[in-house]
């Protein structure tokens, strides 16, 4: 019986490795022709050079009848991003359309489980046609396994989904269950039911782009958190996003030296709020001046735009920022903005990132579509999220803060630890005109010159009520500060609160957040 030498066995391995690099050159060319990178190319560009270690590299499908390809259409393993260990899986569209079979699904599930055990982030590069029909219910179970693993890992480690191809059917739920979804223009598509079935059932003619392109999910459905033009930009974004996040929910925050001094006084802030209360300004200018230079990373910039959510650094400490945007709908909170803020606040709470809130909100967005759309339910999510969060919560009231919207934007009753207000703050139940109509209804009805009386009462109300001092007298504002002092004040409050422990929490299985 011929015995194969050790040398021969090693040579066999080398040949196998060479084969595995590009399994199907024809399909690889087709992938490139579509403007998409191959799975291994993506991993090379995302991870630090030479840091990738593959797992289950030769796993094959049991149920698939015929020549099962090694790896089963997904490449998974661990590597480093900017020196930090991460787990990653990249679906390979050139292998059976990246379809999910038993081995494929199990590999992804195992990668996420390993990431949980290791306490490091996991990044999924999704590019798949969906469940593998040939494997029947086994494929569905595989998809289900991925979904349940993502849920178990949720809140333990950061999970980032990068959509680099189609993601249809049940498997489109996996990225949605992860913490952040990045979509790439013209390459990513996510939908539950494809155009053909949609046409059959509802008669609607819809293209891939209409149903689930990057723009739709970034600006209409709110499924995507970021939208980039190219795959490389998406990888840059993953690196940037990870730099703000701890490895897991028990790990310390990644503080960086930005070289920006914490006690920087910014006189330009004193000049941003216009004298005329009907004139808007861009809240992003304020954020750009208060936080460390060029560190603001906006999350979901195209959806729910009356609230800005994003990560930033304050003297190097990563923080979560929630801020009203007076440029959009006067800063009024609508359904999308409430949901966006609520989810963001809950994510930040999961990973111990402090929350800094900037308030300039006149109220909730009025309208039939808002009320019938359930602004009550969705606005409640924001209230729940803020109250539940046990991270340091610091609020700066910049201009308007009226009514229920004042309450939900990180007010004292929502558990804000320190509340600052600018001299331009107007903290009141409602604006002057509406308020005097109610309070002085009788006097106005009896008045000889109603317009004159109205004008006088409005002026009085504006002087008495539309300022931060009534709220300060009630202890709901800790200090009225000059805008130029904001950065230093925030830094001092933040550093003393960083090791905050919230003791007054009743024991329960979990609350019932309105959904």
């Amino acid at each position, binding site marked *: 019986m011929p015995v194969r030498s050790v040398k021969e066995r090693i040579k066999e391995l080398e040949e196998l490795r060479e084969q595995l690099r590009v399994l199907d050159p024809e399909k690889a060319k087709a992938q490139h022709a579509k403007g998409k990178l191959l799975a291994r190319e993506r991993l090379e560009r995302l991870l630090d050079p030479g840091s990738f270690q593959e797992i289950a590299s030769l796993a094959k499908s049991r149920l698939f009848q015929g020549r099962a390809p090694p790896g089963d259409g997904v490449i998974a393993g661990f590597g480093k991003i900017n020196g930090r260990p991460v787990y990653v899986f990249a679906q390979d569209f050139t292998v059976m359309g990246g379809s999910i079979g038993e081995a494929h699904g199990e590999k992804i599930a195992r990668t996420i489980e390993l990431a949980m055990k290791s306490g490091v982030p996991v990044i999924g590069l999704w590019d798949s046609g969906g469940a593998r029909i040939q494997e029947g219910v086994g494929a569905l179970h595989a998809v289900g396994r991925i979904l349940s693993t993502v849920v178990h890992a949720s809140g333990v480690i950061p999970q980032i989904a990068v959509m680099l191809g189609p993601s249809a059917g049940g498997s489109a739920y996996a990225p949605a269950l992860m913490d952040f979804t990045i979509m790439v223009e013209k390459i990513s598509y996510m939908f539950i039911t494809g155009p053909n079935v949609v046409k059959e059932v509802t008669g609607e003619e819809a293209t891939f782009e209409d149903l689930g392109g990057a723009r739709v999910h970034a*600006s209409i459905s709110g499924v995507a958190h970021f939208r980039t*033009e190219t795959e490389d*930009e998406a990888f*840059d974004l993953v690196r940037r996003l990870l730099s703000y996040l701890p490895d897991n929910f028990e790990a310390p925050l990644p503080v960086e030296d*930005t*070289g*920006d001094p914490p006690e920087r006084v910014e006189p*330009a802030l004193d*000049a*941003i709020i216009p004298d*005329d209360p*009907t*004139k*808007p300004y*861009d809240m992003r200018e304020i954020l*750009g*001046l208060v936080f*460390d*230079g*060029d560190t603001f990373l906006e999350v979901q*910039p*195209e959806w729910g*735009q*009356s609230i800005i959510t994003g990560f930033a650094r304050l003297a190097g400490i990563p923080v979560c920022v929630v801020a009203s945007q*007076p*440029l*959009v*709908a*006067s800063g*009024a909170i609508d359904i999308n903005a409430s949901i966006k803020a609520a989810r963001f606040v809950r994510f930040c709470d999961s990973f111990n990132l402090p929350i800094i809130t900037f308030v300039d909100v*006149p109220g909730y967005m009025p309208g039939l579509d808002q009320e019938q759309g359930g602004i009550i339910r969705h606005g409640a999510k924001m209230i729940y999220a803020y109250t539940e969060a046990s991270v340091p919560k610091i609020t700066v009231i910049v201009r308007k803060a009226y009514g229920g919207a004042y309450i939900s934007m990180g007010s004292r009753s929502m558990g804000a630890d320190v509340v600052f207000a600018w001299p331009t703050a107007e903290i009141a139940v409602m*604006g002057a005109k509406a308020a005097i109509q109610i309070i002085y209804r009788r006097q106005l009805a009896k008045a000889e010159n109603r317009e004159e009386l109205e004008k006088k009462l409005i002026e009085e109300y504006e002087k008495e009520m539309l300022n931060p001092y009534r709220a300060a007298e009630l202890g709901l504002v800790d200090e009225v500060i000059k805008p130029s002092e904001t950065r230093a004040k925030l830094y001092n409050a933040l550093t003393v609160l960083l090791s905050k422990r919230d003791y007054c929490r009743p024991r329960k299985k979990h609350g019932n957040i309105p959904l």
Partner: protein
Amino acid sequence: MDGRGRQQRGEDNSSHNVRIVEVQHEDAGVYTVVFEAEDGSRSSVRVRVEGDIISTPFGSYHVSELLSASKSAKRRRERRKGSSISWLVDFESGVAKTKLSVKVVEVYKKPGERVEEGDTVLVVETMKMLNEVPSPCSGVLVEVAKSGAGVPQGGILFRVEC
């Protein structure tokens, strides 16, 4: 820009946009770059280029980082200009229609006047705030609502022929 990527602000809090006017080669890897601000004033900075790294008095930068940062900043600026008013105004083939009923408070351009993409055409009031509405493209303003007029939901604010 200062060394941390923040735009310098003038006394009136305007942000300065600068463009590079001239690059003088001083020595091996050393250049003097001359900038011109919007107001015409010029300033110069000496930079050293070594391999992939550009060193300036304000900090050192990787060339590839600067390139990708400037590309994405440009794209963000472009997106911002367009998307800020999309909650209120629908633009389709140069026609600006309002999504809420508004009052036209001030009109800056006349019919027949040329407008550039991003120029403010008029200001409308809704939800107790003033909102500037920019032109979605460069072209000629064909029609525009009158100052003081109330425009109902779905009404036309202006029409530009791009």
